């Protein structure tokens, strides 16, 4: 389409104009993208062969191991030789992070944890990356006690296929699944980001005691997610009281882009959290 081509050009021009060290926030309008990406197709994705191949240092430069070495720190373990490695593992993942509202809100809440947003749509990912870059630049030029945004990052990934390429067993303590695409049609239910079989992968990357947070405004999808997690022996639902005391639940309700939209429209938000249980002994 001619119109699309023109838009594309404008976008490219705009993105070219962004410079390293620029403190201006990116404009969302240049990053909008078709709402759905097909999780089954072969996207031109890049992903690490295994968690140890992942170049985390480019995403969290302030935590890069090599940097610490230069600063004269004692190098420890073989990881120190690896320029891709960072000083601590990523622990919190926002899956399908969209424009990143949750990430930016979580950053100051968990200043000592590394948080990653994962998003399948290229432009949307770029937007979040640009915004992180800009916020880091802004923070660097102020001396007040502001969040540095060095602990959040965003990468493009199809998490339904490649989650275990990024995270080792038991690496994560929290996974967020906020306002997942509902895929209303029955035929497309396998495209849902929660299912009995995918829950095994969430269980694999979560440590025992870790939590999966879900929120949606589609009641049917809520029931679906609750059903599929409750059926899975590796999870138990977190009780209402504990749920409401968790700061993450509040953040998830108020700070996600979708959460804000639902608030504006006076819609209902359904929350459910699930705890990763210890694996049972072998039979």
């Amino acid at each position, binding site marked *: 389409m001619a119109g699309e081509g023109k838009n594309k050009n404008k976008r490219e021009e705009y993105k070219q104009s962004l410079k390293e060290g620029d403190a201006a926030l990116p404009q969302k309008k240049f990053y909008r993208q078709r*709402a*759905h990406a*097909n*999780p*089954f*197709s*072969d*996207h*031109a994705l890049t992903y690490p*062969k*295994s*968690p140890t*191949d992942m170049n985390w240092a480019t995403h969290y430069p302030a935590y890069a191991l090599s940097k610490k070495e230069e600063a004269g720190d004692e190098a420890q373990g073989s990881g120190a030789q690896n320029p891709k490695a960072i000083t601590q593992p990523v622990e919190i993942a926002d899956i399908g992070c969209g424009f990143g509202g949750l990430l930016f809100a979580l950053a100051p809440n968990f200043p000592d944890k590394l948080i990653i947003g994962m998003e399948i749509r*290229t432009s949307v990912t770029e937007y979040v990356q640009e915004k992180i870059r800009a916020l880091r630049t802004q923070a660097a030029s102020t001396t007040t006690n502001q969040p540095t945004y060095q602990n959040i990052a965003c990468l493009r990934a199809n998490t*339904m*296929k*490649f989650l*275990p*390429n990024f995270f080792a*067993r038991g690496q994560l303590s929290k996974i967020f699944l906020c306002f997942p695409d*509902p895929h*209303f*049609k*029955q*035929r497309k*239910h*396998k495209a849902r980001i929660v*299912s*009995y*079989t*995918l*829950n*095994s*992968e969430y*269980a*694999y990357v979560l440590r025992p005691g870790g939590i999966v947070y879900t929120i949606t*405004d*589609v*009641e*049917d*999808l809520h*029931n*679906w997610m609750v*059903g*599929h997690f409750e*059926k*899975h*022996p*590796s999870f138990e639902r977190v009780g209402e009281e504990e749920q409401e005391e968790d700061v993450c639940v509040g953040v998830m309700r108020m700070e996600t882009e*979708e959460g804000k*939209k*639902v608030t504006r*429209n*006076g*819609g*209902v938000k359904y929350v459910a959290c699930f705890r990763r249980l210890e*694996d*049972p002994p*072998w*039979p």
Partner: protein
Amino acid sequence: MAHPYQCILASNAGSLDEFNWTLIGASGPKLVVQSCSGARSTWPKEKEEIAENGQGDEPNGPPGKRLKLSPPEEKAPNFSTMVMSNDSQYLVAITGEDKCIRVFQIDSDCQLQQLSQRCMPRRPSAITLTSDDSTILVADKFGDVYALPLLPSPGEERNAIPTAEPSEAVTEKKFTPAASVLTVHSGRNRKVLEEQMKQAASLPPKPKETMKFKHDLLLGHVSMLTDVIYTTVESPVEGGKPRGYILTSDRDEHIRLSRGPPQAHIIEGFCHGHEQFVSRLCLTKSGLLVSGGGDTDLFVWDWLNSRFLETLSIRDPVFDFLKTNKFESNLPDDKAHFNIAVSGIWNLPNKDSEFDEILVACEGIPALFHFKVTGGKAASSLSHVIAVNANALGVAFIQPRESALQMIVSVDNVHKPASTTELRDEEHASRLQYFSYSQAGGWSSQAGYHKQESDSEVGMEGARKGGDEKAARDILYNVEVLRKRPGAED
């Protein structure tokens, strides 16, 4: 001209006290059984077909006539994969087009009796049995693995065909639009909702999707599954029961290790390292895992610890073989541009060797590659390259007597060697080739058992029928197509 045996297997290779063997081949939609006693049979019974097709298909047609690979008989579904129970009593075979799992009893006189036929909602791509033969594990093209009892308990429907799609784990109530007016919608979702509301107003609810036989969803990848293995390992805990494991491989480079039922929801690890699709998994005698697919190398794993041990180049010996033997027409000058697709890895049931030994076949290659595998303890190496008369399709081993090892190779008698598309010119090419093995002398070609029967009687889909060559080819060659094409949608 007969359809090649797209799969072949044998029972009892190497079992110590028992030198009886049974060989089963699948030729298009037909199964052929043969035993060491000389008994043989086909399934389905072929009387009428012989009467019908007996002529016009004989080897004495016009010489040099270009042969065509005919599509399989009528619409009978073709066998795509099969496995024999550990006790050699049952054959479990998949027919592709109807997505069916068929269980056969193998009678003492070599007759096959179909006991059940269970059609799955998605096309099965690989099957195996648990060590106790109680359960079939079926991996499908949609990424799921189901467990089905080998023998459905009485009272269950045996020939069940699903009415529609599978029921998902959570039952859907009566049809109600999934979104409410309060839901925030993208344009697309809004359209779907509108459609649903219209539908709800006009249509009765769709029948619930079911498979009318016992089946448990064990695990799933979001990728096409290519192979599945079940194995047990001694418990590391004193007095503990043996532990069952499921290994699954997919088109997205993954090899996953899960616990066996009833804990198949627990993932124990991944063997990370492949950069292309993984198409075949093989456990060696000593318990190492060898995997192969679209990569230039085979990978060897200490799978229980998700530990990579070594790679074995497979592309290079294949390339060299083609070059040396002047199969150069489809060969790029530069090795780096040469793709191979591993279509078979077999553990050699060779008791005399202290090391693991495997045979490897690649799609469209008229040779088998015999490796010694040490898992890094000593130098692993390519021991033999066994040239065969046509593209190797399948391999079965039999042990006709103490410390004798023989191999039957099914070959593509239809296409030219080293091509998956060009048809052969010559009229009569054998579908099976026989080899015997000795530790000292390697492989030597042999005359077959009851050889006269192997080419004439069975699977006489005549060349004259013409028709859909491609469909017929897909039965033989379906691995290289798993390779991802760069530049797919964004």
